[in-house]
């Protein structure tokens, strides 16, 4: 692997890492309070995995619900409901 200098500074890197840390939910942030970059990255990985799982689960739910609903009225309700909120 050829040696090249880092393009961004250590400081900028740490700033990016801490910004990433701030995106983690409160419960995960606790684990990284002594934030080493490695810990933040690890928690970030875990968080993304859990979000992927949530999307999977919600897709399953939506699929089942579509199965059971009546066409027009439910759609209209959803759209109305979402526009209201």
């Amino acid at each position, binding site marked *: *692997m050829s*040696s*090249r*200098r*880092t*393009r*961004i500074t*250590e400081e*900028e*890197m740490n*700033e*990016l*890492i801490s*910004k*990433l840390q701030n*995106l983690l939910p409160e419960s995960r942030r606790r684990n990284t309070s002594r934030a*080493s*970059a*490695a810990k933040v*990255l*690890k928690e*970030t*990985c875990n*968080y*993304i*995995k859990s*979000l*992927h799982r*949530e*999307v*999977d689960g*919600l*897709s*399953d*739910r*939506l*699929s*089942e*619900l*579509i*199965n*059971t*609903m009546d*066409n027009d*009225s*439910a*759609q209209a*309700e*959803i*759209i109305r*409901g*979402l526009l209201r*909120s």
Partner: protein
Amino acid sequence: MHNNKYLKENPNQPLLAYHFIQALTRINLAAHTTSTKQRSHIIKHAAYVSMAFAAGNKRTWTHAVLHNRFPIKTRFHRLSGSRRSFIVSLSRNKETLHQAHLLRSLVPGGHAMEFSSLLMETANYIQYLTAQVRLMQCIVEKFDMHV
């Protein structure tokens, strides 16, 4: 600093909702022809595609989703960006590199990104993922009230 724009942007919620609901409407129309499991895959795919549309094409991750059809596994083009990426300083240990490697597998197009881009793209990706999850939860709630 140039990278601030990645984090200032808040996901465009209405746009996200618009794309996803459009997809759901289409999926619903074809409901009688699909099994629940098939439909679940289609919905999941639609979720990632709407996220990518809403986030716009200035991001590497959105390109990866729209062209490689993430999360459905295809043999995507490994550009070995992780090797091309600049040598991290000596203070960055093996563990960090290892975690960064794992992260690359989780973020669409991650393997083609330089390390600093990976961090910024990850932040953006997480923002959209959480927005999408919230949207789907919201829809499930509305459904539940009427079923």
